[in-house]
């Protein structure tokens, strides 16, 4: 019997796999309705059992549940939703926010120093207040995806959407962080080459 958190976790994985599929060369140029159909089919296939596990269950064992920011970025980058395509600058800002969050969390959570910022995600009011201010600031300066992403993460955490009880797991995950760091590094490298 699937619990609600298993449903949400597997749905997130299936959604991500489906969205990444339609970004593949050859498929990303297809008409939007075709790509939407492929997403729906791929989503369904992810739930089919292959042996003891479905594809989504297998992937979930490796990746864990995906954060709201990763799912939002994937959706924005898929081009499936009208008006949801990010301008280059807005995309860079979101990636920068994810990268900064990751750099402020992962090295310390993995053992650098004696303090663990992951602990703040267990109902720390100051951390929540800081996030609220960040979301407010993002909204004030028309950074819609950033404000919406932070808010959705806070909402998902408050209702226990995933099996994790830690707010950090709703904000970022290692895969989105790796992508953000990689994409920003690539942008920086290209800028340096142009200047050179």
């Amino acid at each position, binding site marked *: 019997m699937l619990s609600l958190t298993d449903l949400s976790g597997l749905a997130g994985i299936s959604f991500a796999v489906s969205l990444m599929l339609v970004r593949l060369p050859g498929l990303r140029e297809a008409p939007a309705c075709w790509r939407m159909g492929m997403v729906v089919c791929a989503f369904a296939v992810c739930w089919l059992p292959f042996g003891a596990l479905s594809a989504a*269950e297998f992937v979930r064992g490796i990746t*864990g549940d995906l954060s709201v920011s990763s799912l939002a970025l994937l959706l924005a980058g898929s081009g499936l939703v009208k008006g949801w395509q990010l301008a280059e600058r807005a995309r860079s800002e979101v990636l920068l926010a994810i990268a900064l969050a990751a750099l402020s969390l*992962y090295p310390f959570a993995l053992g650098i120093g004696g303090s663990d910022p992951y602990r703040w995600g267990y109902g720390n009011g100051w951390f929540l207040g800081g996030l609220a201010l960040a979301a407010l600031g993002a909204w004030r300066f028309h950074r819609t995806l950033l*404000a919406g992403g932070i*808010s959705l993460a806070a*909402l998902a955490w*408050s209702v226990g959407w995933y099996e994790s009880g830690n707010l950090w797991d709703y904000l*970022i995950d290692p895969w989105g962080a790796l992508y953000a760091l990689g994409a920003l590094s690539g942008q920086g490298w290209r800028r340096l080459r142009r200047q050179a």
Partner: protein
Amino acid sequence: MRRLALPGLMLVAFSAAFFKAVSWPAPAQFQAGLQPVPSGQAAPRFERRFASSRLHTQVHAASAIALRDGRIRAYWFSGSREGASDVAIHGAVYDPTTGRWGAEQVVVTREQTQQALHRYVSKLGNPVVARAADGSLQLFYVTVSLGGWAGSSITLMTSRDDGASWSAPRRLVTSPFINISTLVKGAPVLYEDGSMGVPVYHEFIAKFGELLRLDADGRVLDKQRLTSGAARTLQPVVLVKNAQEARVLMRYAGSEEPRRAVAVETSDGGRHWSAPEKTAMRNSNAALTGLVMQDGRMLTVFNDLERGRDALSLMMSSDGGVHWREVERLEDQLAAGSQVSEAQYRDRLSGLLQHSDPSIVGSLAQYVDSTVRTGCANGQCRFEFSYPYLIAAGPDDFHLVYTWNRTFIKHVHFNRAWLEQRLEGGGHAVSH
């Protein structure tokens, strides 16, 4: 309307989040003291036997719990080898009135765990059983989906019938990096508000001990780092002195000499912990165990060595865990050397096995063969007595389980009268 959508979302989201945050349970003090169980044992008692009964298998990392009816349940992992996909969590029940262990049974398998968690699981390990404040049993064990033990996360099952049956496994999320590298070994403790403190440790890139706090439903409320990664500590053991004070002993996994167990202390119910300090307890990068007796004295069992695990000692402290005195050398194969030939190993094993459990005399040859299969490679063999786990089944009764040469789980049952007798007799001269 669209212009209000985002501010509306922000308002709802953060209102809900702040409501959740203010409802978060506040820190609580330790629940100190044992739950006394009437004991009829006045005469000194010291008995040994094997808790596990399967042959030609590898076993490790046992834990135990006193049941309401006076029996003892033990759990360990067992399979073809540590980390193999066939490793499962096994258990058995000891009846002190008969002095016998019941048949070993499989409690949960990798396949059952994988199915229940709806995610791929490659291996299991390290079962730790505890009694929650509501009387239920909680069985924590480690699961790995990717990589080695550094990729572990903790899974939890609950029993409301003292271990006869268990709920479906569910995962605890305790780490942001794909939820890897939280493992469990030490005995959990209770807080006054009914929450549970579970000593855990991290060993991906850095090594450090931590303390999880779970609510009555097994949800993670907090996670405290006990030392920094630089301290290279593992497998914390929490010794609660009273509601505010506790001492945590940890395995030292570093290379700095002298190799000693590391300790931290708290005097405010665990809100803050002292800087780590090396104790006088030798530690060969091996697990230790301990408990606080009702009169405040502490017992610990560990490999009192800087290298190897071929000796195991029971020690007592009367000063809050600062100085320790050996009560009994439970196992000692130091004279055999770190590597022995198979012939010498077999010679020693017959006597060791019979001494460990006289009831196996009819199957001695099979027990010797099982031990050789696990303890020898390329004609060289070694002794290992490790991963001890000590519990109190009342103010006067103690049970210890530990890995015996990775082949059997050995059980030692002793009482306070025996301890006092050993102490009066002087025990061993070694003291720390």
